[in-house]
């Protein structure tokens, strides 16, 4: 299908009738279609097993849909050749609930790793890593190992690593899931700042207070089906002025 007919330049992510069924018969996503604009901040909500993680894995091309098409920044990622996938991922930052930091590397090395593996020269690494550590407020802990940091600090390192390459999209899979409410606020405001710099953020979360406070776009999944897509939405069923798309 010609992309020109479907694509508008302000769209960053587009899912078109996407269905994903696992081998055991579980329908993770069922005919989901949606668009996310450039620079948008989207909360992905729903109970466990609703398909949030599959949604993010599909955007990361860790999974392929059984049917449907996914576009990111104007590119059809379903039909992307396998060898191009690493280059796609360089435009996508990822943050996870369990941080996924390398325990034998320092804070600086963990963040630098993201640049090292894509072949950035040392001079660029030396310049960009301190900047991003400054942004996440961990410049003074650059030589610490992850085990010497609190959960919130580790998540900040993970965000720094995801953002150091200035990705177009940042995917966050329950980034505040292991953190207390106060720390979660800090992480949320950090993601908000990143979003304000122009990066599109898609965040899967169970944090009701956070979603309700931010009043941003909310996409709700239930057993793989898109059941709600609202601007200025809240976590649960909107009774407070949310706008149905």
């Amino acid at each position, binding site marked *: 299908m010609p992309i020109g007919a479907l694509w508008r330049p302000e769209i960053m992510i587009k899912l078109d009738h996407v269905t994903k069924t696992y081998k055991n018969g579980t329908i993770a996503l069922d005919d989901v279609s949606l668009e996310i604009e450039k620079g948008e901040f989207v909360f992905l909500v729903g109970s466990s097993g609703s398909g949030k993680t599959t949604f993010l894995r599909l955007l990361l091309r*860790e999974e392929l849909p059984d049917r449907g098409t996914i576009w990111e920044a104007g590119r059809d990622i379903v039909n992307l050749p396998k060898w191009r996938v690493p280059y796609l991922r360089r435009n996508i930052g990822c943050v996870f609930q369990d941080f996924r930091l390398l325990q034998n590397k320092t804070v600086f090395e963990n963040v630098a*790793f993201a640049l090292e593996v894509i072949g950035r020269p040392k001079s660029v690494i030396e310049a960009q890593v301190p900047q991003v550590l400054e942004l996440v407020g961990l410049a003074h802990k650059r030589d610490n190992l992850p085990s010497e940091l609190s959960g919130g600090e580790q998540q900040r390192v993970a965000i720094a690593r995801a953002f150091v390459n200035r990705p177009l999209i940042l995917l966050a899979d329950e980034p505040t899931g292991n953190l207390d409410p106060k720390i979660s606020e800090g992480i949320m405001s950090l993601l908000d700042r990143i979003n304000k710099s122009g990066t599109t953020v898609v965040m899967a979360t169970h944090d009701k207070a956070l979603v309700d406070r931010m009043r941003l776009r909310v996409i709700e999944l239930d057993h793989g089906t898109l059941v709600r897509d609202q601007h200025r939405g809240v976590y649960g069923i909107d009774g407070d002025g949310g706008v149905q798309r």
Partner: protein
Amino acid sequence: MASFSQYVVKETTTNLWRNRVTTAAAVFTVMISLFLVGASLVLGQGASNAEIKWQQGTLVTVWMEPGASAQEIAAVQTQLDAFPYVHGCYYRTQAQDYEEAQHLLTATELSVLKPEQIPSSIRCIPNESQDAKLVIAKFSGQPGVFGSPTAPIQYLKTIQRVITTAQYAVLVVALVLLLSSAVLILNTIRMAIFARKREVAVMKLVGATNWFIRVPFIFEGLVQGFIGSALAALFIWIGEAFWRVRTESQSPDGLLHQMLLSNWQLFWCETIVILLGMTIGSIGSAIAIRRFLDV
């Protein structure tokens, strides 16, 4: 490019050190199996050397009747010189053959043997060792010829058969060990990768290409293979030097002496061993990493 090579060197050394016990196990297995492979190569080359020398030194002895006339001896000698399968001949008198017999026979046997009973002989070098049979067939029963000419054909055949069998046996054992060392290297690397599964996953997430992830692991296998095979080559060199020292005092006609390798031949055997080690190491690790990259 410079930062990538720095990265590869850093990752390889870190991993080799982190997995030093399994690295040592892989290195020793490569060393032992390639030592056997190298030994079979050296033995094969030695057998080939000895075979060439035997071919050049195989003698057919045409024994002449003790009472053969000078004309009969001259006639046989002329025919031998004209025979196309013969490279060259020389005549040994009865006295010379008796002297030789004194070294070969026991005192009891010599006591009943008189010099005039000993046949004189014409000794010929055939073009090829197998041509000895033709000489024997042609000159058996000729006037003045005593019985059938003789050549150590059976002895040569036996020695060759023993060496060939030994060569095959060592080669089969070496190949089995080579295969098992390849599997061990593969397993070692797989363990190393499994320990770094999380790291590989993070690398994939941040957009590292498969080759970027693969190269340090392949390099790791290459280093293991190189160290193992270099040690094997060292032991082969020591073994060959020991063999040389032991055989120096022996007669140049001795089997072990004839099998000695030239420096150039030894160099090639060692080079093959080292190249084999490096190939097994790098291919083994390239196979091991494959399944972890399929994300």
